[in-house]
Structure formats: C-alpha cells, structure tokens
C-alpha cells in the first residue's frame, strides 16, 4: 500500500527533476539507487565510497547511482520521505527500500538492498 504511493510520488518527482535519466526498460535485475546526502560531510563521503565499492562488487554493470545533495535541492527530501542523512533509496527494482547510515555495515546494506546472491 505504502510502497505504491511512494513509487507514485517518486515517479512524479522524476518527471520534473530526473526525466533524462529515466530508463525505458525496467529490467528486474537493474538497480537504480539514489543516495541522499547533505553537503560533503564525513558520513556522506563515506557513504558514497561504500556504495560505489559495494555496487562494483555485487552489481557490476547493472546499477546506476544518483547522488542527491539536499543542500542544493531541499525540495526533493519530501518526495522520498527523507529524514536521516545519508539515506540510500532503492528505487528499482520495486519495492522501494531505504537504508540509512553511512553504509559502513556492509552486511546490513546487502540485506537492506536484497542483494543476497541467488546462488
């Protein structure tokens, strides 16, 4: 229920702000990850580094990271219901998932993003 509203809100938001980045095909194994930060704080820098590393390790070639700095675009915080910084939002594949923190606890990130290898 909530997930659907969230997705709706996000897509509405995308139309205005990130239209060009919207992929046409939404393959179920493609990840769109949006990381919300607020300025270049230590936590933000750490989060970006952690995220890049993890994606390269686990999702090579099938992910895209968008970094949103809320100091520049504060109006975007509302759409994804951002409270904590940093927050990582898995926009694709559905359902929307959120991970808060500097992503230093890799295990939690893997669980949170549902990245358990299919094996």
């Amino acid at each position, binding site marked *: 229920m909530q997930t659907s509203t969230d997705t709706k809100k996000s897509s509405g938001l995308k139309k205005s702000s990130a239209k060009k980045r919207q992929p046409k095909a939404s393959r179920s194994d493609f990840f769109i990850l949006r990381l919300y930060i607020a300025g270049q704080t230590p936590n933000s820098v750490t989060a970006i580094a952690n995220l890049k590393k993890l994606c390269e390790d686990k999702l090579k070639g099938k992910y895209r990271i968008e970094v949103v700095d809320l100091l520049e675009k*504060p109006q975007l915080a509302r759409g994804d219901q951002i409270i904590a*910084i940093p927050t990582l939002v898995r926009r694709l594949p559905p359902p929307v998932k959120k991970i808060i923190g500097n992503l230093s606890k890799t295990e939690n990130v893997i669980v949170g993003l549902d990245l358990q290898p299919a094996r």
Partner: protein
Amino acid sequence: MPRANPNPKVVRHQLSKTPTGIQGLDELTGGGLPKGRVSLVCGKAGCGKSLLAMEFLVHGAVRYGEPGVCMNFEETEEKLAANVASLGFDLRDLTKRKKLMIDYVFIERSQITEAGEYNLDGLFIRLAHAVKTVKAKRVVLDSVQALFAGVADTAILRSELQRLFRWLEDHKLTAIVTGEAGVNALTRHGLEEYIADCVIALDHRVTEQISTRRMRIVKYRGTAHGTDEYPFLIDEDGISVMPITSLALAHRALTDRVSTGIPAMDEMMEGKGFFRGSSVLVTGTAGTGKSSVAANFASAACARGERCLYFTFEESPSQILRNMHSVGLNLERWINKRLLYFNAMRPTTVGLEGHLAAIHRLIGKVRPSIVVIDPITNLVAESGTYDVKSMLVRLVDFLKVEQITSMFTNLTFAGDPQERTAAAVSSLMDSWIVLRDSKPNGRPRRELYILKSRGMAHSREVRELIVSQRGIELGMVLKDHTVATHVAGQ
C-alpha cells in the same frame, strides 16, 4: 522568582510572547507562548493537543500575519485539512497563499534498514526548506514521538531532537511540540526534559459519565502563571479556555444602576435598582416566582435597548416564552429585535466546567449587558457544592470584569442542604432577593424581600409579590413577619 537567573542584569525583563489566538489561553499565559522558544503540549490521545497546535498556526497565519509550518508525523495533509475544516479552517487556501506549509513526515520502519552512522539532517533540511518557503514564524511538530517508532537508535534520536529544538530557537521560531502522555511522565519519551520554557498538559477525563477537558500550565519560565487546572472546551469554534481574569479582585465597581424591572423594587433600592455589573441572587421555594422575576428583569433590560443573555437549565426557551405570557411579559419581541438570547442546556449534558466554558464563550459572542442564569440549582444538584462555588466564583468574577449585571436564581427547600448551598453562593453575590410563600390567615401569598444589597441603603421591608396577567408588582409592606426570624428559622 525562586529559580536562579543566569543573567542578573535582566531581572524584571518580561519575556516576549506570541499570542496563540486561542480564547482564554493567552490570558492564562499573560500573552501567549514564549516567543522564539519551543513549547511542549502534552496529553493523552484525543486530549486536543493537535488541535491546539493547529489553531496556533492558523490564528498565527490569519490574525497575526505570522506564517507557519506544520511538520506532521501522524496525519497526511489531506486528513489534517479535513479534520480542522469543521472548525472553519481552510488549510488548503492558507497553503495556497503561502501562509502555511504542511509537511507530512512518514516513517515506515519496515522499509528502513540502518547501516552505519547517520543523523537527522533530512528532517532539518525539510523543516528549513518549509520555513524558508513561507517565511514562517511559527512551527508545529506533531508529534515527534513518531520518530521513536521509526528510528531504532534512540541515542541518535535524542541528541538530534535536542539539536532540532535548539535549531528552532536559533531561528527565532515560536514552536509547539506535541507529545503523547507517558505512564509516569508527562510524555512517553520524556520530551519535557528537552523543553525548558513552557510545558502545557491537557487532560480529558470522565467523571460520573460527564467528560471534562482541562488544561494545566506545568511550567512557564519567566512568567507568573496559574498552576491550577483550567477547564477548556472544544466546540465548533475550536478551543476555548476559561480564563481566570480578575483573580486579584481588581474589577472596577460601577456606580450606575440597573432597574430591577419592578418599579416598586427599585424603590426599595434607593429608587434605582441594582448596581451595574453586580451579581444578584434570587432564591425561593418552588413556585414563588423566581423565573418571573428574572424574566422581568431581562425584559426590562431589553426594553431599555440592552442586550440580555438568558441561560436556562430547566425549561426550554419556548416554555419560558409561553409561561411568561401568563404574567404579561412578551419576550418574543426582544428575541426578534435581537436583544434577548436564550440558551437552553441540560445541566447533565456537559460537566460543570463545560458549562462554564460554554457560558463564557456565548457571553463573548453576544456581548450582553445582562446575564440571567435560571436556575443554578440544577448545576448544584449535578456536582458538589464546592465545585459549584468555585465555578461560580470564576463566573461571577468574569461577569464583573466584563461589567455585566447578572441574576442567578436558586430553588431552595426549607431546611434542605440546598439552603446551605444558597448560603455558600450568596457570599459571592452583591444582592440577594428572597422570595417565599406564606399563608397568613389561610390566604396564600408570595412575599419578597431584599436580604442584602451591598453598597446601598436598601429597604428591609417584606413586600407582597403580586404576579398577575398585568405583570409583576409589589404589594403593600407586610408587617406580620420579620426578616430576621425568617433567615434564622424555617
């Protein structure tokens, strides 16, 4: 002030206040909430805290030119707008005109995983953005404890909340934070620890199936405030709190007079009647004509072009109108001329405090110069004498400050505890008119005398009260009874 002042130079400096616009609350707090500070409003579910907070914002936007931001953690913008629409608040319009911004903060714990360090900058950014967008002066956070459900790390949350409150104060925003009542604390998560300046507790309790809402100012730094519980009412106009004006008995005594409506009775009071702004008690056993005397008083006031508010706790207005026809009083014409207003309430519909608040609110609306309460007996029956007295003290004080002349009728039964009630109440009254039945020589008649009337040389005679189709008149002076024996005896 008992508390140590960190800056001894500003000893007598009065805090600046931000008016809430809520009837009675601003009187209670000496002007409103502390300006540029955070106030906590706490209470159980359904006690009215969200409403109080929204009223604060709406009045700020509409009346005081102070736009506001509401960060709502519990209800969506749509729901909130619908909730307060019944009070005549148009949130959508205010939002459109950039007088108000509502940000619904939704936290779905199941959606969130925590992985490493974080802070609540997102919340700050949203708040700052909203404040900037509408140039807000007022902020409501309703209610932040929802964050405790959404954020696992309470240590982070607590320090972030503290930072949030400091942020609000740094930005000179007057804020209300609401909090759910805790079991052994004011709020469930001890929010009161972070808020130093002003804490207001709301309560909604039901005693003997009658619900009463009460408000207490738990603390208000830098302001002398009453610590009592004050009743408040939520009706179609929102919240109104019974004020405690004139606690100091500072009302001005007027010297002009108001006719009693019975020329012969005016005669008994130096030819002029009651003092304006005084309170009059009319007591008597059943059928002695109390309502007739009261209605006559009201009618006479209307005939002079004064507005009169008539509260009836026993009979419906139409019943009174019909009955008064039989004593030659045509009250409809005053109603049609919008001089006479009836308000009929069953004493049991709301609590005593509710009555008080309702009476107060109506008086504020009608702005009468005469108020009749007929009778107070039923209120007495409903609660203890002490409650009634404390309610009447406040009511009488309020009426005096507003310079409204008031008449209260009270049914007495000889030898009954009611008699004592009348005695307890009578000390508040400036004038006390006693009506009674008597049967000298087997012929029943009604009698009237003035038991007391402060500040004037009134007649001590007992007069026959003649209630007929022609109206109310006083007959000849009766010599066969003395006032003194009646009061002591029977």
